[in-house]
């Protein structure tokens, strides 16, 4: 790296090399340490949650009280709440996100696409607590007629009707929480699918159009097959975001403990993250251990979802690179 320049004498050249070597070693060491620190931090999250939460898995029954007797009984309704809200969010957000991504990558002319992309980025920049405030004070009230409508029109249908039982008079149902979550995860799904859509080789698209395909047929036959794995991982990342999002659910949902199919019920089980935010204040040491234990469950779940998503992306990137 450090060839001596013409001016320096032999001896001082050695000295210069040695000094540069020290500088290099220190700098390289610092860079490496920073990298290792990230690994350590991730491991630290797991270790500290495990230390603090280990005892939370096996507490006496009254700690889990009044609605459960064991950790499983405590965490299962929360898992149900977490997944219900996330799945509602995904069902709403995924088609919208793919549509917007297509607008940006294929449908809109450039002078429309750039501001559109910017608007979607703005959605990502809004703090989650502001979404929560908006959802609790504004959207929930506005959605009350929709709750009533869903109950009256879809309620009597045999199987689907179970989802739309007695409606929540304030609109603070898990459906509303899911809608707010959907708006919050829209940007990440859009950003990633936009990226993969625009990577479709131009030649594939032009070949399809030259064969007489309409624009939608072109999208279906070239863009979607090419970006399938990217789309899957975009959905997975959105799911990861939705599973761990706290404030929207905390502020919007009115919490209950009964498991039911009714997604517009007066009260529904909350999510793990929201439950932690609601209960941490009690600061009883036993309950805190239990909360940290549920946090550990949440961490492992989101880690797994993100891990799979990134693995799919990585695989497809390697395939594209070939």
């Amino acid at each position, binding site marked *: 790296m450090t060839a001596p320049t013409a001016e320096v004498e032999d001896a001082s050249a050695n000295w210069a090399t040695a000094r540069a070597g020290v500088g290099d070693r220190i700098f390289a060491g610092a860079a*490496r*340490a920073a990298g290792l620190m990230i690994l350590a931090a991730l491991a630290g999250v797991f270790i*500290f*949650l495990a230390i603090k939460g280990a005892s939370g898995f096996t507490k006496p029954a009254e700690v889990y009280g009044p609605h459960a007797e064991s950790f499983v009984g405590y965490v299962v309704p929360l898992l149900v709440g977490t997944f219900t809200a996330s799945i509602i969010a995904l069902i709403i957000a995924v088609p919208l996100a793919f549509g917007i991504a297509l607008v940006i990558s294929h449908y809109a002319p450039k002078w429309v696409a750039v501001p559109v992309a910017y608007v979607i980025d703005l959605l990502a920049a809004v703090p989650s*607590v502001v979404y929560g405030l*908006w959802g609790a004070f504004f959207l929930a009230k506005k959605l009350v007629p929709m709750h009533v409508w869903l109950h009256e029109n879809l309620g009597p249908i045999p199987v689907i009707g179970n989802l739309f039982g007695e409606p929540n008079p304030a609109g603070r149902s898990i459906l509303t929480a899911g809608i707010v979550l959907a708006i919050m995860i829209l940007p990440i799904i859009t950003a990633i699918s936009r990226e993969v859509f625009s990577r479709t080789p131009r030649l594939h698209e032009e070949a399809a159009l030259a064969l007489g395909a*309409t624009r*939608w*047929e072109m999208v279906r036959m070239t863009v979607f097959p090419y970006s399938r794995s990217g789309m899957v991982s975009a959905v997975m990342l959105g799911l990861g975001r939705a599973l761990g999002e706290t404030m929207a659910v905390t502020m919007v949902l009115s919490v209950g403990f009964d498991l039911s199919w009714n997604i517009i019920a007066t009260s529904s089980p909350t999510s793990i993250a929201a439950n932690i935010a609601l209960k941490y204040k009690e600061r009883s040491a036993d309950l805190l251990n239990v909360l940290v234990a549920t946090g550990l469950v949440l961490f492992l779940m989101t880690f797994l979802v993100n891990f799979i998503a990134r693995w799919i992306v990585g695989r497809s990137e390697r395939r594209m690179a070939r």
Partner: protein
Amino acid sequence: MSTLEEVQTRVHVPLVQPRLPRQAGVIVGVIAAAFGGLLLVLGMGVVGSVLLGVLAFLVVLPSWSLMVEGRRGATDRLMTGLIWTSFAIAVVPLVSLIWRVVSKGVGRIDGTFLSYSFFKTQIDQPVGVYHAIIGTLLITLGAAIISVPVGVMAAVYLVEYGKGNKLAKAITFLVDVMTGIPSIVAGLFAFALFTLIFGPAYVSGLGGSVALSLLMVPIVVRATEEMLMLVPDDLREASYALGTPKWKTIVRIVLPTAIGGILTGITLAISRVIGETAPLLLIAGATDRTNMNLFDGAMTTLPVLIYGQNLRGDAPAEAIAWGAAFILIVIVMVLNLAARIVGKIFAPKKG
């Protein structure tokens, strides 16, 4: 069948499919808008008439196309309509949210709102969110001080030293996974860490900074990494050829070239974490007083204050919450704008 007949039947095959007129979309759009307007006049709600108007558009245009252009054309028109509708649907909440925050928040902002805290020394003292603004700035500053060096150095390691080795691959992958850590888990981590060391009643702004930096580091690493990879190898090689040691090349050549993008990334990362609520709720607590000491005692931030006011739920609390939300949104938007401007100013000169 003779050859002559065959030729004659072929001649009559049309080479051009019938198409709708160019303005078909506009025509149907106007009709649908008129239909929606009519419903509005007839006393239907705004939401209902807009929905039915859009629905009318989505039904009429493909049906017309089906009659003239056939099934494929109709599908294309329908999908185009749906795709644009999806975009319109996504804009509605954003506009509604920003309108709501601005219209409800602006009225609450005045000199006292920005310069007083919740802590009253006299009975008629006005309340303000000064303490939360200070808390937000200090905790975010703390998070930036922790995560910028770590993030930038880690990116340097990934791009300059670890190219392709196992450790670098593992770090890249785990940084990606880390971007998906739920913020409440970051808060629990800081909570577990600090209460194990300092005892169960510990709260401080520093804990909040640690939690936020866990969320911030991956964003900084990704942004810096991408920028460093854009620095042309020619620059590095020219520097090596002059006998410059590698670390000096990185500090004096590579980082300055990429500084615009790195600063943009850092600013965006700050704007991402400045609105975090959940982790601070757990470890930084909430207080009515202005606390300037990051290392001791509870510290309120704007998001936590908004959440607290939301819990109280009465009218003055709601007004304070909207006012604080307005300040928070302004801070985030200014940071986003600043990120773009910084990126432009420090962009490497070309030519």
